[in-house]
């Protein structure tokens, strides 16, 4: 187990390093140099020179890369050019919106998909199964931002149950914060819950066709117990993979959904930074999101070890 862990950890570090190089190189190929790009065509020579110095453009690319990564490791993400405040502070503030939103949505997705998938699988071919499959077919096809717009119209503008946008802030209390995140989280969770339901259902159906389910039934295990005691944990293995992948879709989806609801999250930050050509912010946020995706997939890998004893073994 220890060796397995070390191996995976090394893999994780390599993946993070390569991803950071890719992002760095992407921004290195900006037409002209980054300073000229950020300031636009009408920049005055002295401001340009000042920004060049601030970005360290006079040094070599290798030097700048290590300065950037070194700073990141110390928690110093540089100074935003447009806002003149430390990027790290901005990111931390925005994280308090984006991370709860992604987790809220993931929680909803799992909370809907597991029961729905199990229910449909255990009543295969019934009206309930067909109903679940029909609804998920629609859920997969709905663009989540459009669904969000319709929900705003119904629940915020017509019924006034939820705010139509903006974020109350956690200072207003947990309830107020969650309330302003509820519609965005539902919009984010709908397609993911639909996909996860279908995966859960088909994975459980596959598992229920396995020989060991028949063995269990031959011991006198009821159909119901066979699903819960033998089928479910085996069915969870592919489902875990999908949950890991979904996290990256949730992060990406959150960037769009934050724009529908005017939530001050990382997604909004990135768009504002793009329109104001603030590359310092863009590269830091993108790197952070990529790190999050890699880290979650690492966590999923680890979770396999908990579920499946075959992976815990020697290797």
């Amino acid at each position: 187990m220890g060796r397995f862990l070390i191996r995976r950890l090394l893999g994780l570090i390599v993946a993070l390093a390569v991803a950071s190089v890719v992002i760095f190189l992407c921004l290195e190929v900006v037409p002209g140099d980054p300073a000229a790009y950020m300031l636009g065509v009408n920049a005055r020579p002295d401001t340009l020179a000042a920004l060049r110095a601030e970005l360290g453009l006079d040094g070599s690319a290798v030097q700048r890369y290590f300065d950037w990564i070194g700073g990141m490791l110390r928690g110093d993400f540089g100074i935003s050019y447009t806002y003149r405040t430390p990027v790290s502070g901005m990111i931390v503030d925005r994280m308090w919106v984006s991370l709860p939103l992604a987790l809220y949505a993931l929680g909803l997705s799992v909370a809907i998909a597991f029961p729905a998938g199990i229910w449909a699988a255990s009543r295969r071919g019934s009206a309930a199964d067909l109903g679940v499959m029909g609804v998920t077919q629609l859920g997969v096809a709905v663009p989540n931002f459009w669904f969000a717009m319709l929900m705003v119209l119904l629940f915020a503008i017509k019924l006034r149950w939820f705010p139509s946008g903006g974020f109350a802030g956690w200072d207003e209390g947990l309830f107020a914060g969650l309330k302003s995140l509820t519609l965005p989280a539902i919009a984010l969770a709908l397609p993911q819950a639909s996909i996860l339901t279908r995966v859960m259902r088909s994975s459980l159906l596959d598992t229920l066709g396995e020989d060991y389910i028949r063995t269990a039934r031959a011991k006198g295990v009821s159909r119901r117990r066979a699903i819960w005691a033998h089928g479910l944990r085996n069915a969870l293995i592919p489902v875990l993979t999908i949950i890991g992948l979904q996290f990256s879709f949730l992060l990406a989806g959150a960037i769009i959904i934050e724009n529908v609801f005017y939530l001050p999250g990382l997604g909004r930050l990135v768009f504002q930074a793009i329109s104001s050509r603030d590359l310092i912010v863009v590269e830091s946020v993108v790197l952070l999101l990529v790190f999050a995706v890699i880290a979650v997939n690492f966590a999923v890998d680890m979770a396999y070890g908990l579920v499946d004893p075959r992976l815990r073994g020697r290797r």
Partner: protein
Amino acid sequence: MKGLWLGAILVSVFVGAALLSLVWVPYDIIQMNMAQRLQGPSWPHPLGTDHYGRDMLSMIMLGARTSIAVALVAVGIGMGLGVPLGLTAAARRGGWIDEIVMRGNDLIFAFPSLLIAILITAIFGASAVNAIIAIGIFNIPVFARLVRGGALSLWTRDYILAARVAGKGRARISIEHILPNLTNLLIVQGTIQFSLGILAEAGLSYVGLGAQPPVPSWGRMLADTQTMYSIALHLALVPGLSILLTVLGLNLMGDGLRDLLDPRVRRAAR
């Protein structure tokens, strides 16, 4: 089988509209007509008009063209690069090519297509072409992984051994024996990636990272009406339902094709 037909009908309606828009649309959409703005469905304008008085049907037809073209080319990029990579990786299992392909796949999977789009846009600005590239790049590992997995299981078949005993090389076997037996898998996955591409394009256009004016796109139609769809609901319903129905049609087709082409399912159905 019903699903396949329904899906095929939905898809052909929108593909037909996109093709028709190449030669004819009911109204010119460059021309604004403020006197006709925000009208509901009527005979002259079956889907109503938007906030500039432009005909929604014409906008939807032209938007279908953008969406379908972007998604189709992105699938093409993904297949064009992913399939050879996957075949090579499987043929040289465990070799350095395999290692590079797999690690490269993992890396791209860490960048959701939206993040790629953000990076590209931050550097080169927003355009439909950049949306295609962003979605296409994300499709490469999808196909590479699918083909590698499918090919690896085929490489263990006895008929591949027989071909090797007949002196055929790995490249020849990949093309003659492996690829033809993966076509079903590719058709099904291609349909799914096509539908995901439509959704991704809509999302990118919605946040302004996709097609730029005056090129119409469904996603931007929704973004443009964000402030007024509460007073003219058709502004949100028409483009939204177009996306929904196209994606739904493609997914139904994908599922239907899978059932049709997968001999295991076919046998069970008989």
